């Protein structure tokens, strides 16, 4: 079960994930990301503070946007990952492909820096 919220702050779109992301709930994440891109946000920050678990399908969602974000010059930063979740990202090598920060302030700072 997952609950995904979107809110806007400081010109960035925040996607807040609460709960677990498995094969079926990954669709919701994909939907939220697609909406954010569709609405034209250039800075997308993903709040993973309350993300308890992510399966390979969920990771696939993040992965599938990497190229699109690069082409459209969209900066996505993930922050607040729990150690276990971060470990999953690291094992798969996604940690090197995505921008990951510990805190929201760091993440917002990075997003601003990158979009300059």
């Amino acid at each position, binding site marked *: 079960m997952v609950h995904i919220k979107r809110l806007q702050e400081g010109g960035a779109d925040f996607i807040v994930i609460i709960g677990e992301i498995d094969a079926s709930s990954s669709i919701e994440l994909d939907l939220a990301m697609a909406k954010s891109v569709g609405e034209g946000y250039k800075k997308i920050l993903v709040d993973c503070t309350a993300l308890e678990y992510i399966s390979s399908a969920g990771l696939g969602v993040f992965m599938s946007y990497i190229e699109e974000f690069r082409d459209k010059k969209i900066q996505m930063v993930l922050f607040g990952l729990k150690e276990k979740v971060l470990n999953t990202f690291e*094992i798969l*090598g996604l940690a090197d492909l995505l921008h990951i920060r510990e805190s929201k302030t760091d993440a917002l700072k990075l997003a601003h820096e990158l979009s300059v």
Partner: protein
Amino acid sequence: MNKSKALIRLALLGSIIAWLTLLFSDITLLFSDLQGVSPDVAEWLPRVMLGLYIVCLYYYYRLRIELDDSLSFTDLLWKVFATGLITTVVSLIFRLLVFMLGRTSLATNIVFSEFICQINLALLVNFLIAALASWKRLILYQKSKWLIRTWMLFELILFVVLLFDSTGMRFSETVSTTMNFVIGVLVLALSANMRWVAYLNFKQKWTSLLLLLLTFFYLAYFFYTVEKSTEVIAKSSSAFLDYRLQLFIIALASFIIIYGIFSFLVILFNLPTSSVFEQKLEEVVNFQRISQSIQTEQDEESVYNILLESSVSSVFADAAWLEITGANNDRKMFTYRMTEQESKNIRDHLEKNNIKGVLDGGSERTRNLSKHLASMRGSRFRSLLAFPIMVKEENIGTLALLKELPDGFNKEMTRIVSTFANQAGISIENFRLMEEAFQNARYKEELKIAKTVQQSLLPTRLEQDKDFEIVAFSASADEVGGDYYDTLRIDDHLVALIIADVSGKGTTAAFHMSQMKGIFHSLAQQHLDPKEFMSRANQALVYCLERGSFISASYFVIDTHEKKVRYARAGHCPVLYLRNGSKESFYLKDKGAALGMVRSKDYCNYVESNEFAYGPGDTMLLYTDGITEAKNGKGDEFGNDRLATTLNEVAGAGAAEIEDHIIKRLYEFSGSKNINDDYTSMTVKFLHN
């Protein structure tokens, strides 16, 4: 069937014999009386025979009319009419005969008049009984318990009256009056049952009126004829069967006439409203057709066609169209008595005038769009009614009904079509659900095949060497996963190993797994550096992995000359390694992105080759995340630490023993044999030689 036919014949025969006996005994009695001699036959015989005749006839018609379920209301009236026609014709023939005889002595003979009179009486009784059987069917249509009881009481009283008539007993004045009163009340009570009239359509009502009218004529004719001849005979003698003394015939005739008149009037007054009832009936039938269309063989298309036809016929629309967005987002257009161009013109017109309504999905309230058509030139239509078709609260199409008259649709019509549209929506929803269930069944079947394929992709034997031994274990959940492992000997001192986990499940996972197998078998033979192996594998896979899918893999080459293992990790779980003599196993953590994550040549920047030397007695454990992510009842994961500890416990053991121990611990931990992911492990034990 044959039995009832035989009974019909028996009843008919009985009535004929009874009547013949009645005729001859009555003539004999009359003749004897006229001649002043004592008769040879008993005086009571004609009366009893008349009773017998009536009973036989009653059974005859009961079997003919009452038990024949196929007769409709007009058929019943027709039966009465036909019986009347035949009897009248027979009677007229005799009348003609009398007329031809003229003023001959035979014609004026009382006995001959008696003969004609008896024939007419028999025909009249015949007609009355036939009518009784028919009326019974009509009255008892949609019967209730009370109605049946009333009818039975009526029949019983008639029978009692018949018995008294036959015995020749006379009721006293009071009894007779009471009897008449009771019969009158019953007749009136029964005559109030006219439910069948409502089910006649306009044409049938006219037919019924005509048939009833003719029936009255016959009755009048018979009564006139019989009455007249009876009077003539009564002047000369009283020793004959006078029908006027037969209470039964009087009661029966009054019942037939009263019910006939009631029916006639009710039908007459129902004539103007019959079209409304007919329309309601048609609506119900249409409604049923839509509901039933899901249970039968029909597809969505026929539901749409039924909806279109039913709506058009229930509101008398001149034309209609139905536009539907199908399950695969394709638009379908059904038109009725109009061209698609005409419908397009109307929609363009509404759009141009910026009218929001059902048609463009702008509003679901505005259904009657008639007033907006007034400003449209070149269209024959002046009224427009539109409805949304909803499936699972989603608008899948619109139904539009058109009339050439202005203000052609009223509230009632809107309500009816709205019901139709709702019902059609439900039908389509059910239909789609059924389709889904069907797809599910097919999906399960596919899974079964995928599972077989997946099992067949895993190697049946693994490479062995004097330097090491390898064992592998794989169990999959009900759903097909995508774990893959394999070995391949490159040359006498090099052996390649792979373990991989395809993201996703089901048939696609099995499909990607088979691709991975193909890539492994073709690339490994080329003796590539592990990093190069991964780069090329990635290059090959980006063309077939869909967006968001990836494969995590670890590739190893064991070199038995140099006693080294070169490997590359592409997003797969780190290898667990245990040195000989040590009690502490460790994970080989290094960089490497999963295959398919970076879809360009840049991938080589995200993967690296590593190498380490192995010694005899070392253990290398390869596994998939199904093992580390296995959960116990509390939701805790088996985890990397627990896996390392488990390996430490059997540090000195052989490959097979290590594997058994790990599996045992894993199942102990998860507490059941029902796994929810794939468990795959490959244990490599380097040997002393």
